[in-house]
């Protein structure tokens, strides 16, 4: 928040070196991710040729044809060389072709990604819009009924299994009341609707999956922002502001909450893997055509190129999110750059 300070040359230099250091770590972590994915997949029992042609293919093809495939995919070379070839593909965004439908893996992921992104973005915004104010509000008067009540409520919310909530919502809103569609992204007669009708139809299909993704995150946001605000309220400058006669509301909004928002930035990095995990379940239940659904189908169909690509992609998304959160955090709170950050 210290705008004047952030402009000073020595602070800018410190910032630069912090970001550079953080990016270097991220690159290292990226290589770690690729090693883990490669090692895990290659420790799955079975002939690695199935990574490229599937089980059906290896049963029907002739021996010379199989040898040919082994050579083109470098399977006749040592594992470390195979890793090198695969890594080269990863860096150039070439994950090969899907075993299930023969199309490039990157194209398959790219067409599903927007669906997942849209669902998660809406869920994220709703969770933040409700969770953060409630968390800040309950920090204002710790121990009061609202604080204790909301703490327990969010705790229970956090423990609710999303697939159960999904079933209950489906049972109630789709089966019993027949208000919302049971699953899918659009109705069967979607194309016959008018433009507004299509938008309404899409929103109606989103309500239940978004609810399932949002509620447990909301609990995380609320708990996190409550503890962030509580930490700030205990600090000396709040006492000083109070002592100088500032009203309670003014102290909270001008001094406490602005500072409490800073640690909430780090939630950005923390919630991304959580959201992606949730997408697998929610997209599967609601037949939402996103990457969680794609991942599940690829696992069942042993579509190794897609599995490896999605594993790397989701881990890299998390990596990016935590990198972005750390950098944002450093901009918002200059103290982090002075100390040895992690």
């Amino acid at each position, binding site marked *: 928040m210290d705008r004047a300070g952030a402009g000073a040359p020595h602070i800018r230099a410190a910032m630069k070196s912090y970001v550079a250091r953080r990016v270097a770590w991220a690159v290292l972590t990226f290589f770690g991710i690729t090693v883990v994915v490669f090692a895990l997949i290659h420790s799955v029992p079975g002939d690695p040729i199935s990574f490229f042609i599937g089980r059906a293919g290896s049963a029907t093809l002739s021996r010379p044809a199989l040898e040919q495939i082994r050579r083109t995919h470098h399977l006749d070379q040592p594992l470390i060389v195979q890793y090198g070839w695969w890594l080269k593909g990863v860096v150039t965004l070439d994950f090969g072709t899907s075993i299930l439908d023969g199309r490039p893996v990157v194209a398959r992921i790219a067409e599903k990604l927007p669906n997942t992104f849209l669902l998660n973005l809406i869920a994220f915004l709703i969770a933040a819009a409700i969770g953060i104010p409630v968390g800040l509000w309950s920090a204002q008067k710790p121990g009061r009924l609202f604080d204790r009540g909301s703490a327990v409520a969010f705790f229970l919310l956090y*423990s609710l299994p999303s697939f159960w909530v999904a079933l209950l919502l489906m049972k109630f809103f789709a089966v019993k009341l027949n208000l919302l569609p049971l699953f899918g992204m659009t109705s069967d007669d979607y194309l016959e609707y008018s433009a507004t009708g299509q938008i309404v139809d899409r929103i109606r299909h989103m309500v239940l999956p978004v609810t399932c993704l949002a509620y447990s995150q909301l609990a995380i946001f609320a708990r996190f922002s409550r503890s962030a605000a509580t930490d700030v309220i205990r600090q000396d400058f709040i006492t000083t502001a109070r002592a100088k006669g500032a009203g309670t509301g003014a102290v909270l909004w001008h001094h406490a909450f602005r500072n409490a928002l800073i640690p909430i930035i780090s939630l950005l990095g923390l919630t991304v893997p959580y959201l992606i995990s949730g997408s697998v*379940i929610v997209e599967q239940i609601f037949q939402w055509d996103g990457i969680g659904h794609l991942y599940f189908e690829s696992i069942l169909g042993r579509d190794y190129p897609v599995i490896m690509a*999605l594993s790397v992609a989701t881990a890299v998304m998390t990596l990016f999110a*935590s990198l972005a959160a750390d950098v944002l955090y450093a901009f918002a709170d200059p103290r982090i750059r002075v100390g040895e950050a992690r």
Partner: protein
Amino acid sequence: MKSTALFTPVWRRFRRSRLALAALVYIAIVSVIAMFAPMFAPLPPNDTDLAARLQPPSAAHRLGTDDLGRDVLSRMIHGARVSLTIGFTATALSLIVGSLLGALAGYYGGAIDWFVSRLIEVVLCFPFLFLVLGIVALFRPSMETLMIALGLTSWTTEARFIRGEFLRIRELEFAQAARASGARDARIIFRHLMPNALAPVLVSASFGVAAAILTESALSFLGVGVPVPTASWGSILAAAQENIDYAWWMVVFPGLAIFLTVAAFNVIGDRFRDALDPRFE
């Protein structure tokens, strides 16, 4: 036991929360039922009765029957066994892996610490359910695979805790005294440092059991967890989804069991953490 001195005030603070005590009693009851599942279950969990398919709760079937005419209550009681076994074993495994790696990193520092810390960063990048789902389904869905996959992916919290505690306490006087008296590293780590670092880790173990049970039931719900026909809370819910039009009892009861058990472990972990840290008073 010298640990009594540490745990008495903690227990006194923990006891003050009625919610936490209720959770503890609930877990105790469910554990006993799970341990003696065949004695508590009114019927064998896999006995099918096609004449009594999808029956609502009645005197004969307290929580109704599923699509194959199996008694839902009996399946839930046996499912408790599956969930708790996987939850506890997976957490024990992650506790062992996590505290060992964390202890090595915190005690020796240097290259070992660097490597363990980087490994934690890498593992944390993978969305938990993605990773576990992939490992379980690609290797062979079974209870053992589930426990190993859960244990080997969730040790990072424990490792970070233990590492931090070891960094803090390894230079304290009692550790220096042990070193000066010529104790070997293994003895210092396990006899002197570990008992002092373990308490906060038990908090994360309680959350860990909750997460393991939640993940197991999610995977079983998706059909890649505990293989059928073994009864598990998640697989009853999976059958419920196929019959969602009418069989509300298959949706409500197993889900409630998962929810209460997960919530109980989370509450215990939360209140235990508060009890360990008197600042929250």
